[in-house]
């Protein structure tokens, strides 16, 4: 691991001159060099840029809340340096002409960018196996997947190739890999973080968010990421609190909500179930009360999601036409329609094509009302379920993923099985609320695998959500574990 492997310890060590940013950045780059052949967390690395950024911090030219800390960016965030590929052949050689707002904010806060991380192509997937450039492996057990779609960002942090990382979450793509890699991951409320420069997948569901080893690291990153941006009209003008200020202040009279309907689904691994139940007891021992709440439309969450997300994707991905940017077929074509169609067939991978097809079908004449409009109505019902639940509790606690990390290749043959990985995470995006995953145990296998729990909070309730997460973290040691790597 890095000499200081969390964001806050690294930041403070650099400030106190216990280590230089250049030295810490070199450590991160060395680890990438040594370990990334077996993990494949990164699509591209930027040693020269990172060392220049680090040097500027060491020379006092750049200061800020993240000054000098090596950070990794998911490769669907536009950067004016290097490539922005979305792990797609379509964008293999795409050089974004501008920085995403979050990239600008991170740079202004003094972050050092070591590289851009692998993902399921266009963020569509739950295992980071759908990448045109090869799958990412889980640092806790390299025969397993790290989760997805932000699996590269999660694996990079879990293997100590950076001290924090950034992902995006459309249906669980930050929380599920955080859970499977033993990290804290936060999907902010829709509208909390600007999406400008995030390559669009499903615009009404996408949010950018942080990965850290600790709740405080996620809070510090949120201080930098959150806020209104004139370039994203869905980013909301609500003041950004200092998420770190009261992070250690426990919440008096905490009410933990347990969703009745979440118990019904089969397929929850017994060790996951036991770990989450133990976490509930930990909260109870701190004085929290447990209340049962009901979200009756839970069982329609995945179905509604796999209408809404592909519909928005099919429309967003229409821009890849082989004309303005991205892959163009080298085959002879007789007209422009053939140019579009061949370029898209060559440039997109199977899962992306599948989702474009589902979305195109669901939006096509005769099916629009039965699928898209109906799914949007179910979305309203799911939001109402959460609104009513949060009248009775401060936070909902449940597993993040029904199982720990599964074996590479285990679910690639069956798209529907892969979709069902998101059973606990998609409703959060559908309703636009905040969700956090944090470690709450490990399996008893030879190579212990992290187990994550999810805390869901009401819209713009990140401050309270982080404090509640910190209460559990302060009472447990899971966040101090690190994978054994050669």
């Amino acid at each position, binding site marked *: 691991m890095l000499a200081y492997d969390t964001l806050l310890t690294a930041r403070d060590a650099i400030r106190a001159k216990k280590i230089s940013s250049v030295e810490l950045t070199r450590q991160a780059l060395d680890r990438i060099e040594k370990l990334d052949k077996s993990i494949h967390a990164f699509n591209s690395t930027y040693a020269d840029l990172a060392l220049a950024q680090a040097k500027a911090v060491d020379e006092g030219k750049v200061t800020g809340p993240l000054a000098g800390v090596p950070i990794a960016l998911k490769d669907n965030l536009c950067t004016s340096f290097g490539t922005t590929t979305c792990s797609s052949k379509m964008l293999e050689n795409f*050089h974004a*002409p*501008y920085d995403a707002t979050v990239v600008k904010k991170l740079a202004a806060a003094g972050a050092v960018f070591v590289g851009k991380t692998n993902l399921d192509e266009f963020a569509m997937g739950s295992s980071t196996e759908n990448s045109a450039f090869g799958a990412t492996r889980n640092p806790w057990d390299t025969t397993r997947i790290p989760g997805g779609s932000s699996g590269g960002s999660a694996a990079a942090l879990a293997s100590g190739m950076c001290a924090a990382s950034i992902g995006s979450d459309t249906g669980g793509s930050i929380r599920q890999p955080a859970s499977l890699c033993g990290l804290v991951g936060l999907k902010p409320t*829709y*509208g909390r973080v600007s999406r400008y420069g995030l390559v669009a997948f499903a615009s*009404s569901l996408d949010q950018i968010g942080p990965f850290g080893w600790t709740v405080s690291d996620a809070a510090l990153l949120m201080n930098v990421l959150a806020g209104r941006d*004139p370039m994203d*009209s*869905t980013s*909301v003008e609500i003041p950004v609190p200092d998420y770190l200020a009261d992070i250690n202040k426990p919440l008096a009279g905490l009410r933990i909500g347990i969703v009745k309907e979440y118990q019904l689904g089969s397929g929850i691994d017994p060790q996951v179930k036991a770990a989450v139940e133990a976490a509930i007891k930990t909260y109870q021992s701190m004085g929290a009360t447990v209340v049962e709440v009901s979200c009756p439309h839970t*069982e*329609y969450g995945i*179905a*509604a999601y*796999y*209408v809404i997300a592909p519909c928005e994707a*099919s429309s967003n991905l229409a821009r890849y*036409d082989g*004309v*303005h*940017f*991205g*892959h*163009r077929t080298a085959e002879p074509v*007789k*007209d*422009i*329609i*053939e*140019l*579009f*169609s*061949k370029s*898209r*067939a060559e440039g*997109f991978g199977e899962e992306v*094509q*599948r989702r*474009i*097809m*589902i979305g*195109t*079908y669901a939006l*096509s004449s005769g099916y629009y009302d*039965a*699928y898209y409009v*109906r*799914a*949007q*109505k*179910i*979305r*309203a*019902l799911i939001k109402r379920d959460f609104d009513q639940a949060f009248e009775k509790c401060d936070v909902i606690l449940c597993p993040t993923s029904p199982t720990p990390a599964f074996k590479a290749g285990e679910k690639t043959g069956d*798209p*529907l099985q892969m*979709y069902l990985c998101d059973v606990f995470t998609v409703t959060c995006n*559908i*309703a*636009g609320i905040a969700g956090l995953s944090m470690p709450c145990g490990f399996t008893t296998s030879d190579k212990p695998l992290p187990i994550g729990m999810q805390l869901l909070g009401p819209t713009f309730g990140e401050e309270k959500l982080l404090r509640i997460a910190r209460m559990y973290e302060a009472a447990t040691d899971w966040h101090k574990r690190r994978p054994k790597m050669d």
Partner: protein
Amino acid sequence: MAQITPDQVQHVARLARLALPPQRLEKLAGQLESILQYVDKIQSVDVTGIEPMAHALPIKNIFRDDTIGPSLSVEQVLSNAPDAESPFFKVPKVIGGDEDSAG
């Protein structure tokens, strides 16, 4: 619902501008059918009187002053194009193909 025939998949692929080989379309037909059969759960929900929700925020149109700000140069815009002749993108013949461009 959710009986997907090869003709339908072919039609959807055409709408989606994906030139896929027959074996791929065949495989997709089966996969789409099983996914859509699962998704058809939503048909059983009573949605009487429920307004569709396009996104989670209670926001309406956001306006700003109509002022000129910085924008990308022509060179920047064309820099990622597979083929260009400044200030234009280059494409093959657009008019006169076999297929109606309205799709």
